[in-house]
């Protein structure tokens, strides 16, 4: 092995939006052998028959990451896209930091995967050049072949794989210029599509291991609670039930099929002790938020003179509220595990394979490398599967059962045991000068800690937490942004766009309130406030105000801003807009056309999105994420709300927690600004602005200002 083979490129610039990644570019790679297989690094292989395998160290949960990352590799490799197969990586020395979250996969892997592909391509070219006795510079590559145009000779990558394997890996391969891209920047369909439409795509719940039983569990749904008694004999009377075992945290019923496991679990008649949180309900949760909101928060961004607000010609303040939300991934919580002889094998639909590995190892008291984690496809993630709770549970059940098990949560279990999006309250206040310009702004966010990420630490410094308040993009001279986070008595976690939705809802709606107060156009108000220094550097973020203004103008123009929203018989119509910079990267603006019926019933007719996400690696994927994010946000704005009683969630099914369906789907239009430079994230970015655009549209339609979610018809009558 050459020294370069072991060279670890520690690339600080690889940081994803929320994650700082330090990925070794050239790890041990695939097992190079004498079989003519070329595996210059851990990210790709070329087999003797020319097939290319792209190894993907991110979890596929619908965002298309297996496609977009493979495209980046294939682009620099100049592979024939039709021959590229995908292999899912498992945690190990070559694949550090596999967590999939923060919309950071493409941005984070962009440089590494380009270099990995380019290094391989240079080696293949060198191998061909040596074989032909020509300079490498006289050769070029295309669709899995090296060509020597002067002589018309070609060699496929497969035929070169053996010779290329013997060459040193270049440390700094030459990367393509954007103008030479053939694949990146073109619309490419999902690599998993054919498997999905034929039912062959394997999610966690589809794992089948020889000798495994299906398991359902009785676990106290209250945070900190426990099982106090259960009737194993009753469960064992259920047809198909094979055993009942206790494990850390609860009781499991093992059965021949999932139905019997569920029925056996129900027959246990488990009684829980909720402990300290047993009496928590929605009223208490909100009163805790309200109490915290009444105390000063921790300042996250302050500029200018806080006293200006009190002296402003016009002062306004408002409180916005957003409720608890469920992830409701369509694939419910599940995991399959086998524990034997000091080792463990796990098949998990996880966004955090290393966390699963680490926590399973800890439970079992073995080294992490003794735990093999197979990452399956995820039937939705949205942040829920960043936690390892359900996977560790399966490991505990498998250990107790002394055989492989698949633990499956019922839909009700999945709601009860979600790591929910916490409710938030945002208090905003602003001062306008005599001309109506915003001269002072206060933004105080109050919410619950995300228990998914560990114990609450009230001393943790929130400075730099973006979430729409701190990273307010507008040029307002006097700013006071603060953050209050309190301990959560219910399980909470990351949810698509994390804390952005409530804060951007408050910020963009309140700006609309100010515009109305000053009798100004909401678009003009925003554009005026985006006229300051650009980019505005804020900590490690760059707020591209000029770029945001461009995106906002584009969305407004495409949506017909300035013209009247289409009239609909018997309904009041309106149009609203909102914009945001997401974690200093993706710029987005959205315009909503809405209408309201006599009974306050809301219809969203059209959402126009304009986005600048740098280079759109796969425009089809970018559009898909926007479509998905808009629908997600509409469920948030119009439907979803979790409430609590006796320490746990009240809504435990799709009847009580409705989600948007196809008949409520608005017309969607997406405009991607032709990007340059590195790509930025897309998974979460389309979510935050939809709600304020809709709510601002409802104000335009009715003159009624909604400050709490979800939108209720009664508030619009």
């Amino acid at each position: 092995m050459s020294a370069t083979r072991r060279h670890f490129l520690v690339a600080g610039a690889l940081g994803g939006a929320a994650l700082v990644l330090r990925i070794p570019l050239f790890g041990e790679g695939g097992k190079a052998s004498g079989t003519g297989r070329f595996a210059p690094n851990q990210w790709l292989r070329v087999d003797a028959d020319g097939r290319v395998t792209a190894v993907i160290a991110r979890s596929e949960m619908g965002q298309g990451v297996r496609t977009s990352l493979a495209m980046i590799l294939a682009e620099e490799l100049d592979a024939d896209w039709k021959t590229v197969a995908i292999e899912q990586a498992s945690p190990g020395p070559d694949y550090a930091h596999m967590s999939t979250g923060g919309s950071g996969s493409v941005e984070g892997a962009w440089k590494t995967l380009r270099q990995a592909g380019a290094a391989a391509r240079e080696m293949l070219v060198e191998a061909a050049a040596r074989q032909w006795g020509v300079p490498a510079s006289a050769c070029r590559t295309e669709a899995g072949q090296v060509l020597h145009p002067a002589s018309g000779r070609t060699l496929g990558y497969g035929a070169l794989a053996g010779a290329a394997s013997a060459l040193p890996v270049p440390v700094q391969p030459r990367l393509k210029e954007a103008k030479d891209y053939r694949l990146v920047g073109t619309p490419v369909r999902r690599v998993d599509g054919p498997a999905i439409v034929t039912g062959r795509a394997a999610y966690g719940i589809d794992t089948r291991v020889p000798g495994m039983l299906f398991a359902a569990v009785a676990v106290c749904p209250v945070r900190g609670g426990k099982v106090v008694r259960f009737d194993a004999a009753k469960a064992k009377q259920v047809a198909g039930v094979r055993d009942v075992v206790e494990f850390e945290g609860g009781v499991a019923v093992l059965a021949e099929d999932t139905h019997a496991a569920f029925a056996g679990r129900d027959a246990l008649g488990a009684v829980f002790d909720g402990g300290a949180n047993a009496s928590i309900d929605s009223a208490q949760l909100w009163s805790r938020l309200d109490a915290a909101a009444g105390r000063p928060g921790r300042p996250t961004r302050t500029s200018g003179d806080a006293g200006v607000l009190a002296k402003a010609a016009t002062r306004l303040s408002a409180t916005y509220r957003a409720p608890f939300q469920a992830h409701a991934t369509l694939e419910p919580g599940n995991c399959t595990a086998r524990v034997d002889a000091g080792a463990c094998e796990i098949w998990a639909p996880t966004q955090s394979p290393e966390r699963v590995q680490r926590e399973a190892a800890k439970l079992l008291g073995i080294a992490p490398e003794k735990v093999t984690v197979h990452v399956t496809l995820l039937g939705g993630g949205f942040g829920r599967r960043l936690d390892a709770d359900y996977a560790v549970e399966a490991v505990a059940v498998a250990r107790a059962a002394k055989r492989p098990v698949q633990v499956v949560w019922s839909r009700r279990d999945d709601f009860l045991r979600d790591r929910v999006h916490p409710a938030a309250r945002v208090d905003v206040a602003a001062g306008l000068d005599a001309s109506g310009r915003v001269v002072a702004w206060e933004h105080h966010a109050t919410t619950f800690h995300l228990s998914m990420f560990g114990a609450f630490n009230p001393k943790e410094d929130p400075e730099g937490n973006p979430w729409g308040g701190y990273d307010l993009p507008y040029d307002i001279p006097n700013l006071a942004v603060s953050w209050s986070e309190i301990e959560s008595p219910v399980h909470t976690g990351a949810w698509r766009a994390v804390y952005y939705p409530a804060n951007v809802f408050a910020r963009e709606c309140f700006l609309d309130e100010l515009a109305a107060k000053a009798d100004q156009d909401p678009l003009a108000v925003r554009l005026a406030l985006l006229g300051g220094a650009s980019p505005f550097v804020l900590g490690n973020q760059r707020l591209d105000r000029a770029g945001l203004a461009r995106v906002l103008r584009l969305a407004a123009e495409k949506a017909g801003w300035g013209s009247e929203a289409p009239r609909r018989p018997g309904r009041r119509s309106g149009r609203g807009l909102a914009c945001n910079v997401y974690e200093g990267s993706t710029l987005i603006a959205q315009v909503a056309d809405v209408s309201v019926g006599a009974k306050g019933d809301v219809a969203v007719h059209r959402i126009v999105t304009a986005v600048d996400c740098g280079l759109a690696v796969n425009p089809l994927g970018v559009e898909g994420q926007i479509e998905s994010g808009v629908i997600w946000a509409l469920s948030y704005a119009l439907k979803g709300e979790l409430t609590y009683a006796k320490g746990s969630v009240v809504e435990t099914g799709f009847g009580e927690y409705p989600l948007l369906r196809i008949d409520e789907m608005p017309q969607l239009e997406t405009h991607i600004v032709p990007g340059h430079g590195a790509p930025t994230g897309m998974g979460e970015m389309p979510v935050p602005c939809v709600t304020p655009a809709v709510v601002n549209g409802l104000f335009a339609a009715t003159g009624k200002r909604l400050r709490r979610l979800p939108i209720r018809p009664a508030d619009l009558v």
Partner: protein
Amino acid sequence: MATFTITVNGETHSVASGDPDVPLLWILRDRLGLTGTKYGCGVGACGACTVHVDGEALRSCQVPVSAAVGRRVVTIEGLSSDGRHPCQLAWLEQDVAQCGYCQPGMIMEAAAVLAKKKAAPASDFEAALSGHICRCGTYGRMREAVKAVAASGVKR
């Protein structure tokens, strides 16, 4: 313990079960290994488990195995021999799926509409699909896909 003889994708299976009410869903998934049919809610609210029973799109979580005896069950695995059913092709063409978990149910629903009514308009497909949930929100592309399917139905 009773034995239930059911025909799935043209093959006959004898399944022993102590519970005549065990939903067809779990027989398909856990006994026959046909995991393309998905569990989403167990109460018929999401549509992920939709299969064809004698040509009718039904929620397999709501069909007791005893009720499937003597009827023709088709799952996503048996919808076509080559993955080229008009719905499958339209779904691929429009790149509908995101996480994909709900899609077999959606495709089975749309395929039943197409099979029952040769020239069904797109609105028929949309009405049938409105009983389903896609948490990824792929409805826009699904609309385009069923438009194409509806057009192909007219041509047949």
